[in-house]
C-alpha cells in the first residue's frame, strides 16, 4: 500500500488500499492510517481515559457519548461516506498521530477542518491542516471551554457535526452525551494501551446496545437508532477481521447485522416495537458470537495472522 488514493474519499473505494495478494480490503478502522503504523493501530489502541462519575444519569450520558463517538453515521457528508467517526481522529479520545486523509491531512496526525472536501459550510479555500488535538490531554490546552455551566462544548460539537461535517442535527441526548464523554476524559484517568480483539469489540457493542435499550425505554427512538448504528459499525469492524477463508464463521454475524439494521429503522417510528425486537436480537447473540470466538485465532485479530496479511501491502 503505497499511494493513498483519494478515490477512497467517497467511501465507495476503501479497497484501493488492499494488497495484491489478498483481495480483502483494509479494516475500516485502518483506512486512514499511515502504512508504517498499520499493524500497531490494528493491534492496540490508546488506553481509555474516562473518569468514573458517581451520578448514574451522568454515567448513562457518558455511555451514550462513548458509543456515538464511534458511530460514522453521526457525521454526514463525505466523512460518513468514508466511514469516519470522531474516533477516527481521536482514538479512544486521544489524538491520532497516524491519521492521514488525502486532501485533508498534511503531515500524519493533522487535518484541515476548514476544507470544502468535507464541508459545504466551512470551506475557506486554503489548505491549512492543523494537528489533531488530544481530547484526553490537558484541558487547558484545548481551545473550547469545557465547563458545564457555559455550554460552549455542546455548541462546538453541534457546529462540528452539522457544519464541519454536514451531518444531521443529533438528538439532544446524543449531543449531551458527546459533551459528557469529552468532559469525562482526563489525563489522570488514562489506562494502559488496550489490545484490540474480539472481546474488546463485543464489549463496545454490548455497551452501545445497552444504551440503545435505555433510550428506547424512555421513548427516544432517534438516540436508540444512532446507538444501534454505532453497534452495527462495530459489527463491521469484526466482520472485516474475518477474511474470505473464514466466511462461514462470519456469515451468522452478517445475518445478525442485517436484522439489527431493521431494528434500527424501526426504532425511529416505533421505539416500543424496536425495543422488543432488540431484546429478541440480544437473546440470539450466542448464535453469531460463538463461531467468531471459535475461529478468532485464525482471524486478523491474531497479530501473527495480521502480520502475514499485511506483508504483501
Amino acid at each position, binding site marked *: 500500500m503505497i499511494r493513498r488514493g483519494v*478515490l477512497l474519499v467517497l467511501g465507495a473505494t476503501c479497497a484501493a488500499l488492499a494488497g495484491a495478494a489478498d483481495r480483502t480490503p483494509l479494516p475500516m478502522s485502518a483506512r486512514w492510517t499511515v502504512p508504517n503504523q498499520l499493524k500497531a493501530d490494528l493491534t492496540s489502541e490508546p488506553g481509555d481515559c474516562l473518569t468514573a462519575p458517581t451520578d448514574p444519569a451522568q454515567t448513562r450520558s457518558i455511555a451514550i457519548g462513548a458509543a456515538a463517538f464511534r458511530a460514522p*453515521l453521526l457525521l454526514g457528508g463525505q466523512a460518513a461516506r468514508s466511514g469516519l467517526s470522531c474516533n477516527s481522529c481521536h482514538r479512544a479520545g486521544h489524538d491520532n498521530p497516524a491519521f492521514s486523509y488525502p486532501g485533508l491531512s498534511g503531515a500524519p496526525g493533522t487535518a484541515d477542518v476548514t476544507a470544502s472536501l468535507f464541508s459545504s459550510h466551512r470551506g475557506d479555500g486554503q489548505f491549512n491542516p492543523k494537528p489533531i488535538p488530544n481530547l484526553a490531554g490537558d484541558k487547558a490546552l484545548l481551545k473550547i471551554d469545557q465547563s458545564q455551566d457555559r455550554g460552549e462544548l455542546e455548541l462546538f460539537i453541534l457546529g462540528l457535526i452539522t457544519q464541519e461535517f454536514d451531518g444531521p442535527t443529533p438528538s439532544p441526548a446524543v449531543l449531551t452525551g458527546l459533551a459528557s464523554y469529552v468532559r469525562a476524559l482526563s489525563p489522570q484517568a488514562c489506562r494502559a494501551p488496550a489490545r484490540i480483539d474480539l472481546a474488546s469489540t463485543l464489549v463496545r457493542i454490548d455497551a452501545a446496545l445497552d444504551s440503545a435499550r435505555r433510550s428506547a425505554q424512555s421513548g427516544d427512538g432517534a438516540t436508540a437508532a444512532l446507538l444501534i448504528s454505532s453497534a452495527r459499525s462495530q459489527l463491521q469492524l469484526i466482520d472485516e477481521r474475518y477474511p474470505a477463508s473464514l466466511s462461514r464463521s462470519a456469515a451468522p454475524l*452478517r445475518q445478525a447485522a442485517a436484522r439489527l439494521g431493521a431494528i434500527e429503522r424501526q426504532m425511529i417510528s416505533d421505539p416500543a416495537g424496536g425495543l422488543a425486537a432488540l431484546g429478541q436480537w440480544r437473546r440470539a447473540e450466542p448464535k453469531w458470537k460463538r463461531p467468531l470466538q471459535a475461529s478468532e485465532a485464525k482471524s486478523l485479530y491474531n497479530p501473527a495472522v495480521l502480520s502475514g496479511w499485511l506483508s504483501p501491502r
Partner: protein
Amino acid sequence: MSHSLRIAALLGSAALTLAVPTLPVWAAGGGGGGGGSMPSESTPQYDPAMEYRNGIAALREERWKDAERAFGRVLTVAPKDANTNLLMATAKLGRGDAKGARGYLEKAAKYDPDLLPAQITLGVVYAKLGDPVKAQAQLDWLQKRSTACGGTCAEKTAIEQGLSEVTAAIGAGKQARIERLDPHTFASAAQGDQAYIAAVSLINERRYGEAIVALKAAQRAFGPHPDLLTYLGFANRKLGRYDLAEGYYKAALTIAPQHLGAIEYSGEMMLERGDLAGAKQMLARLDRICTFGCAQSDELRRWIERGPDRG
C-alpha cells in the same frame, strides 16, 4: 497541434507514474457495505479502471495491440466513454490503422464534443482517408469553436493548433501525416487524485460546472471509474440536466451494480422527478446491500421522509 500535444492536453503533462490499484475500488459495494464481495455474477470479472490504466501503460510502451486489448475490454462495459474511445483510436493509429481509428474517434467526439483532441484527430483522419467533406466539417466545427472562444478561453492555443493541423491535413489529403504520440505525456494517478479532490470540494461549494471540468480531468487518468461517473451524474443533476445525469448513474451502475453513491443519487433524482416508488426501490436496494449500515441509505431515507428539497 501535434498528436502528442493533443494527448498531453488530454491526459495532463506529467510523466506517467501509474500507481495501479490492486482491487476494483468499488468491490466492497461502495462504502464497504458489501463485505468485500465482487458485484453480481453478470458483471465482467475484470476492472475497467484497471484495464484503462493497463491500456495507458501499453500505449506508453508502444505495445499497440496490448493497448487495444485493454481498451477493448473497457469499452465492452463502458462503450460511451469518450476518453477510452479516443485512446483506442490512438492505439489503432499507433500501428497505422487510420481506418480502424475513425469509428472510435467519431464515437469519442460524439460522446464528448468538448474533447478537442478527438475532434482534431478526427479531422486529420478524415483527410487522410480521402474524405475532404467530413474533414472540412471538422474544420468548420473548430472554427466555430474558435469564434466562441473569442481568443480568450483556456483552449485558445489548442484550438488554433488544431485549426492549423486540420487545414494542413486537408491540403495534404491522403498524404496527411498523423503524429505519433509521445509516450511520456500521460496523466499520473496523482494528478487524477488532485483533480478528484478538487471536484469533490467544488461540489460541496455548489460550483457544479467547475466540478464537472475537474471530474473530466480525473476521468482522463482513471477512465470510466464509477465514482467519477456518479459524481458527474450528481453535478449534472444539480445543473438540471436530468437525462445526462441519469446516463452517468446508469453507466456507473453498469460497471458497479452495488455502487452505493450511484444508487443513492439515482433515488434522489427519482424523487426530484416525482417517482417516489422508484426512490423507495433504490432505498430498499441500499438497505439490502448495507449490511452494517451506510450513510447513503440514511441520506436517501431522509430525502424520502422530508421531500426532495434538501438541496
